[in-house]
């Protein structure tokens, strides 16, 4: 490839995938130099993605209450009286439609660990706590992460309370948990 063709190649992939030009140059300079044997494995950039306009279905109220009212709701089975959070529209054991019940937003850490390595999407937040929290008034646990100054302060039994982000988007990350002082 001639130099101007190479520049176009970098530009195209930079615009298509959002991979910075310096990384593309670092990874593909040798390949594009024309010095690589014709039978050598050839690597190219790619990305898989899909846009959504996703429906929460019968869980919709849970996310609207988070976003609009800073409220956490559970879902109570009228037969076995178990309260689900994360909520579900039907009790999976009794097969009865559940009823919405407001929760206080306080809870307790049931299990926790500290992550020192993670996926590309979260690597800049390390280290952080990965924990199961059981909200008061519910019978289930939910996964959460906690970014705290001192990770050693979070242990099984730590009492936590819900806090809400200023900018809420109708996703589970509108709410996060922090230890009760």
């Amino acid at each position, binding site marked *: 490839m001639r130099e101007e063709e190479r520049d176009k190649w970098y530009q195209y992939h930079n615009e298509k995938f959002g991979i910075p030009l310096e990384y593309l140059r670092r990874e593909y300079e040798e390949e594009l130099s024309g010095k690589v044997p014709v039978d050598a*494995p050839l690597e190219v950039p790619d990305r898989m993605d899909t846009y959504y306009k996703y429906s929460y279905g019968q869980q919709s109220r849970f996310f609207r209450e988070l976003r609009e009212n800073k409220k956490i709701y559970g879902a109570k089975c009228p037969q076995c009286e178990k309260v*689900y959070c994360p909520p579900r529209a039907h009790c999976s054991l009794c097969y009865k439609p559940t009823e919405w019940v407001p929760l206080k937003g306080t809870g307790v850490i049931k*299990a*926790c660990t500290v992550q*020192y*390595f993670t*996926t590309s999407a979260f690597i800049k937040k390390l280290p952080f706590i*990965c924990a199961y929290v059981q909200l008061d008034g519910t019978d289930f*646990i939910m996964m959460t*992460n906690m970014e705290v100054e001192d990770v050693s302060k979070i242990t099984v039994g730590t009492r936590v309370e819900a806090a809400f982000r200023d900018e809420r988007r109708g996703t589970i990350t509108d709410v996060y948990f922090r230890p009760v002082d």
Partner: protein
Amino acid sequence: MKKVAIVGMGTTKFKARWVDKTYFELAFDAAKMGMEDAGLGREEIDCAVYGIYNDFFQRQYQPDAFVHDYLGLGLKPMVRVNSGGATGGTALRIGYSEIASGLYDVCLVLGVEKCADCYNYELQTATPEVLRAILYTADMTYDNPAGRTAASGFALAVIAHKEKYGNPTEEQMAKVSVKNHFNATKNPIAQSPQVITVEDVLKSRKIVEPFKFYDNCLYTEGSSAVILASEEMAREITDRPVWITGVGASADYVMPGNRPNIHTFESSRVAARKAFQMGGIQDPLKELDLAELHDAFTGTEIMAYEDCFFCEEGQGGDLIDNGTVMPDGELPVNLSGGLIGCGHAVGATGIMQTYEVALHLRGEAGERQLKNARRGLVQSIGGTLCTWTVCLVLEREE
């Protein structure tokens, strides 16, 4: 039900990256080896079951169709299964059913996985991007946004187990790592053969409390295949059949909030119990000669000793301390090196484990051959906090 035998098998090397092969080319290599081992051509395969885990890894949805095409098996029935880390075990279970039902006589069960085509350009490494692709298998609405990894999910279970029973300790976990890396030094297909010490493991960098670097399996690319046949066909094909005499499977609640506890893997206990019932095994520690257990993490291998009833609940740590699971112990575990030493090519892993046990039962395991191996166990687990488990009991011809 008809009796089902393994009549042929093959595997590629397990490597961090097969840059010179696509997933269907890797599958071809394993299938060819398996067919050659059985002395069969593609025309004699009646049907196929493919174990392929992650479509993002392959950069292809419905990758099974392209494997099937490349293997020249067009117009034969096939199905692809995906049960996370237990994909290989599940593929074998479905392959078993194809033959046991009498519907088909010869079934190719093949697992394949790429992963390191995923790439993080900034960090110049595959793993964080591999983990991102995996995280799409966590509940997308509630769990995915928490940034957890497979390791952190299993770490929570190990921590809960330790809180209840006082083990596995970090030293016990380190011993499992030393054992499995060492076992891999005798396995020519292994990705991570290493002679390391307990100290090396304890000193290695933290990944997720309490796992250090050497407590984790590595991501692997590779393909493994076995060919299953009915008894009638097996007698024609081979004089060294390996019989599948027990099959157990279970799938637990994936949202762990629906489970009564997280310090044990109930799906593993159900699957092992079923497989042992079917195989007529009362005391697995005495009646099994070897086991390949799903050691994605050292701590979960120790939990698997209990979940497979090698000991009472809470006593798993003793089995590594007293040498029971060492190569010269009463019940050697992971002579292949397991996922930690041999590697974890997800869809292929359960089939690689089966290949390993069958190799010993056929007396063809070379330097690491276990003397007089008659009966072995394969445990294949996968999913958030061990959603799926498949257990298989394999026996040699008497």
